[in-house]
């Protein structure tokens, strides 16, 4: 680990507009610093700035950026009205990690690409312009949607996938003031600047995540993984789905482990809405979802796997 300066912010204002790297739970940043994949000159500890409450906001909820993943998952309101969020959080990492991990840090966790985490390898995300060793390499956990010729990494997290389906909004503070970024637009595709995971600007601080009024219906987070716990998703499906008189009245889907962002596709949601559930319908939805999907070799299986995981979730959610 490279030597760094450390200081502690007392209030959000101290953190906004700073060049120092923010550290919250440290569960991702410290690991990467030990590997010297991340080499910040200075760390600014934000764990004492507050922002650790979960408050009602109209019919919705506002979750402070420093709320721990464990506390969010255990919150009775979240468990009752936004169970998808609780389930997705609990599907990730381990209890120890979730106790330390924060809402803001979770959104900003970096990819699990093996080449990104290994300084010997070419990696455009770590070192822009150096190339992408994952293309043609070991790429079993890489993207099948929205990848570029510069980077095929995935956003690995679970929570943001659920938040995308739940239409959550990320609240931030910049020197110019506060702004709101819909969860679905928080992360970005790699394009030719994969070093940038999301749309946060330098010096911008996540202050909260807000959930709109409960979507109701059945909420499912299905994480397909190599072992029963403590493994990142091969693919995941988040669904909030409401049935009315045998038809799908509303559905919000999001997909994890398949792209540089939690993946959403409004057309898929629209295709399903108003229809009677059937295996054939699920297949049609998958066709549309996977229209542009492309494997990289080791991860080709994610294409049929996502199709099948979607079918499983839709079957469960619709009672088909």
């Amino acid at each position, binding site marked *: 680990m490279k030597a760094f300066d450390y200081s502690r912010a007392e209030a959000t204002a101290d953190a906004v507009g700073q060049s120092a790297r923010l550290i919250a739970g440290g569960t991702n940043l410290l690991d990467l610093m030990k590997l010297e994949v991340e080499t910040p000159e200075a760390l600014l500890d934000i764990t004492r700035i507050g922002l650790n409450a979960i408050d009602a906001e109209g019919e919705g909820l506002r979750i402070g950026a420093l709320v721990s993943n464990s506390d969010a998952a255990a919150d009775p309101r979240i468990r009752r009205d936004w169970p998808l969020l609780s389930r997705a959080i609990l599907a990730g990492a381990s209890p120890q990690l979730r106790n330390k991990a924060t809402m803001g840090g979770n959104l900003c966790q970096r990819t*699990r690409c093996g080449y990104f985490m290994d300084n010997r390898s070419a990696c455009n995300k770590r070192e822009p312009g150096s190339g992408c060793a994952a293309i043609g390499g070991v790429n079993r956990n890489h993207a099948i949607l929205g990848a570029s010729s510069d980077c095929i990494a995935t956003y690995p997290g679970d929570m943001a996938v659920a938040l995308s389906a739940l239409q959550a909004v990320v609240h931030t503070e910049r020197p110019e003031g506060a702004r709101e970024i819909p969860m679905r637009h928080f992360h970005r595709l790699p394009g030719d600047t994969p070093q940038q995971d999301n749309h946060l600007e330098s010096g911008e601080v996540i202050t909260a995540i807000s959930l709109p009024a409960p979507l109701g219906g059945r909420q499912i987070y299905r994480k397909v993984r190599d072992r029963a716990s403590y493994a990142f998703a091969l693919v995941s499906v988040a669904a909030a789905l409401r049935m009315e008189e045998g038809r799908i009245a509303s559905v919000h889907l999001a997909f994890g482990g398949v792209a540089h962002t939690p993946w959403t596709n409004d057309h898929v949601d629209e295709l399903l809405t108003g229809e009677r559930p059937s295996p054939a319908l699920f297949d049609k939805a998958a066709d549309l979802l996977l229209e542009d999907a492309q494997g990289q070799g080791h991860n080709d299986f994610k294409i049929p796997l996502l199709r099948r995981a979607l079918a499983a979730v839709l079957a469960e959610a619709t009672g088909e």
Partner: protein
Amino acid sequence: MSDTYDTPDTRDMLDRTRQGVIGQPLDRPEGPLKVAGQATYAAEYARENCAEGVLVGATISTGRVTAIHKDEVLAMPGVLGVYAAPQMLRRPAQGTAGEAPLQDPSRVDYPLQPVALVVAETFEQATAAAKALRIDYDDASDKARFLPTQETAEAAKEPVTAGDLEAALRDAAHVIDANFTTPGHASAAMEPHAAVAEWDGDDLTLWGSLQMIAFNVAELADSLGIDPKHVRILSPYVGGGFGSKLGISHEAVAASLAARELGRPVRVVMSRQLVFQSIMRRSETVQRIRLGAGADGRLTAFGHEALVSNLPEESFSEPVTQASEFLYAGDNRLLGVRKSDITRLTAGSVRAPGEAVGMQALEVAMDELAIATNLDPVELRKRNLPETVPGQGTPYSSRRLVEALDAGAAAFGWDQRSPTPCARREGEWWIGMGMSSAARVNILAKAEARVTLTAQGHVVVETDHTDIGTGSYAIFGQIAAEMLGQPIDRTTVKLGDSLLPAGSGSGGSWGASSTGSAVFYACEAIRATLAQALGCSADQLILKDGQAWAEGVDARPVTDLLTEDLTRTGKIEPGELMEKVNQSTYGAFFCEVAVNAFTGETRLRRMTGAFGFGRVLNAKTARSQCIGGMVWGIGSALTEELSFDARDGHLVNHDLAEYHVPVHADIPPMEVILLEERDADASPLQSKGVGELGICGAAGAIANAIYNACGVRLRDFPMTPDKLLADLPDPFAPAA
């Protein structure tokens, strides 16, 4: 008297002694220290003025180091030295080598091979300097081969041939001809490799994390070019080894050299990543199994051929067909292992070398044969137990395979299984059952131990043998307490110090029986002296709870027979029995799995193992070994795989987040049945090894259960969801 074990000891000594502690499920005496953080592991020895060393791994796959820009980092804060001496190791030593492995790290044989050691006042300074160290290479990676191939493999060494395999296959009523692949595995021991080295004049003390102290002293001394009498190694607690610490590795030699140069102690702790990248891997295997059987399911043809890999100049090749030699019938045989030289880290012994991967393939092939012959898989196995080792005529010692099959089947409820796949569906899950046999060779190794019965009646056992989490401390105490008739709490066991008599070392499942036999013999010598003092023959002597008596001789406290401490040394060496009698260990696995009809995820629901391995020395530690072995089998079946980049041979998943050992949620209720057995051919304790048996074949049972659940026959391990998808039945179709 010769120390070699040439005639079976059928006296049943440990059944006639009275103390009643042998075999009892006693706790490990060092357990409380370990859970309370009071057991000191190698890296934790606090030596005054200790400097910290960090190893630097090569950035090329193969080639030569042409320059190390030491001066640049010597100017960095705290840096004391940069070492790349020719004595430093290029590869770790293989198990029981007893001499230096390949040295001179200026030749790079594989990616991340340690090429230099940077030493500084603090670990952070050494790490920073190690990262900053510039090294120039003459890169020969373009000439390297990173994938094993049949074409480049050497001919099988010592193939087993008998009769005419091809002809027998042509004539067989049923033939199975199948290819299997298993990936590389890591030992993934919890405690990373670490060493603290300190010199006192010409004498070196090394606190290390090692499995075989006497061999390790010889390896370290040879590497350093000094007399072994100047080397002392201490390794009283080892946080798991699984083969990775059989021989010495880079850190031990590098720490010793730097400590000598600097004239102060040096600690070298390898990072998790570097342990994965530069210690030992289990070779990946490609296996072809050919079985030919008559209409009655009796095997007439048995072929098992494997391709494995290693670095050039390594003689170790994963002995994939080891159990195939003796487990099943089939007079026409061809068994052989070919090695392909490739550029990847060294391949060596990882828990249950050979059987771990060979048995899981064989047991799948047997399942396929059971289906072809329309026999119950248990029955097929029973029909194929040979009278003597096929092609060799060697007799078997104890072999409780039939009992294991029956006891396991009964406890598990095997009769509930439907032989047809896709018969049971619960929600999204296909449910299936599978079974397999377990088999593993048994080895007795040379060992020595010293036992003292103090004048106060306390028993002290001393040997350099290690306890790598297996229960050595418990078992040696039990043997001595049983033999000398003292309560277990009057027994002390001292291990892991090379100044003590050389035990066998922990490896190959041989530790408890081998060093335990030396303890046994030392106790016998003490008993002889006590008998004389009491005035009876050793045979008649009865010892219990500190009292000694014999038929017609009144009981007296043992301490009355002692005027001073009584110390005896016991020794054992393998003898003719190892050659003349096949003394393998056996068992059977039964398991139930659920396979997700949509996603192909497999979750184990329950597993039963029944095992016969001679006398059970401690029912608790033996059970734990069996469970641990089965957990390894589950990992081998479902999750564990070393992923190498085919372009440069480097290991991509080099930590415990990405190399998937099973986690708690993967392990369902596990049932273990220990079959009591006495094997006088194996050792005077009549015990055999159990540390590896639980792995050998376990993954095959899971593969067979997957087939039974959903009809997908997998021959490529681990059986991750991606491998099932293509062949899974339509998830929306109702169960058959």
